[in-house]
């Protein structure tokens, strides 16, 4: 069964550094998303991406964040200058035509020290 994959599974970085989290959505999906989950808290929507542009973003998704689909398979989330409070699990998701249920990847745990 096709699935969303994410790399790396765990990323440790120092405050102020740039990080890029990578995702490979399900191959025929058209809609792509990033969510985050701070430890012990709920899953929060960050951004959705369709037709090579952001379709919606939350207030969390400020100028420090960007997304890109650099080729036909990858979908990336970049954090330009990480802060301690960016430490969280970041989930990528994708959905197909009609954008109904979203399929989630296993997540990347980002630790900012």
């Amino acid at each position, binding site marked *: 069964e096709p699935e969303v994959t994410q790399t790396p599974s765990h990323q440790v970085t120092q405050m102020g550094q740039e990080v890029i989290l990578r995702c490979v959505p399900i191959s025929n999906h058209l809609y792509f998303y990033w969510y985050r989950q701070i430890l012990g*808290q709920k*899953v929060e929507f960050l951004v959705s991406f369709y037709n090579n542009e952001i379709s*919606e973003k939350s207030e969390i998704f400020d100028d420090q964040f960007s997304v890109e689909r650099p080729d036909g398979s990858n979908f990336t989330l970049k954090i330009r200058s990480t802060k301690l409070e960016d430490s969280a699990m970041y989930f990528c998701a994708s959905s197909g035509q009609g954008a109904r249920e979203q399929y989630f990847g296993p997540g990347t745990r980002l630790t900012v020290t």
Partner: protein
Amino acid sequence: AQSVTQLDSQVPVFEEAPVELRCNYSSSVSVYLFWYVQYPNQGLQLLLKYLSGSTLVKGINGFEAEFNKSQTSFHLRKPSVHISDTAEYFCAVSDLGGFKTIFGAGTRLFVKA
């Protein structure tokens, strides 16, 4: 805007007992409804979804949920739980455009022997 309220943060239950995890939502538009399960240190797995049609939906692992539009609820039930059902359960809602999914705070189901 949508919101989701999960009324119980923790639900302890004995093995083979029935369980109900409660979820209420708020939205000014029609929505899709979902339940996701998150096992420790893992990603989100879709348990079941309501898109349209029958208000009683069945999912994986013997779970089912009933959509009640008048009460804006989507409670999750299982007639007999197993130890392996111990996990965090998230209720979620998205509008029909599907560009983002809003999650509840989660309910930790703890099944005791």
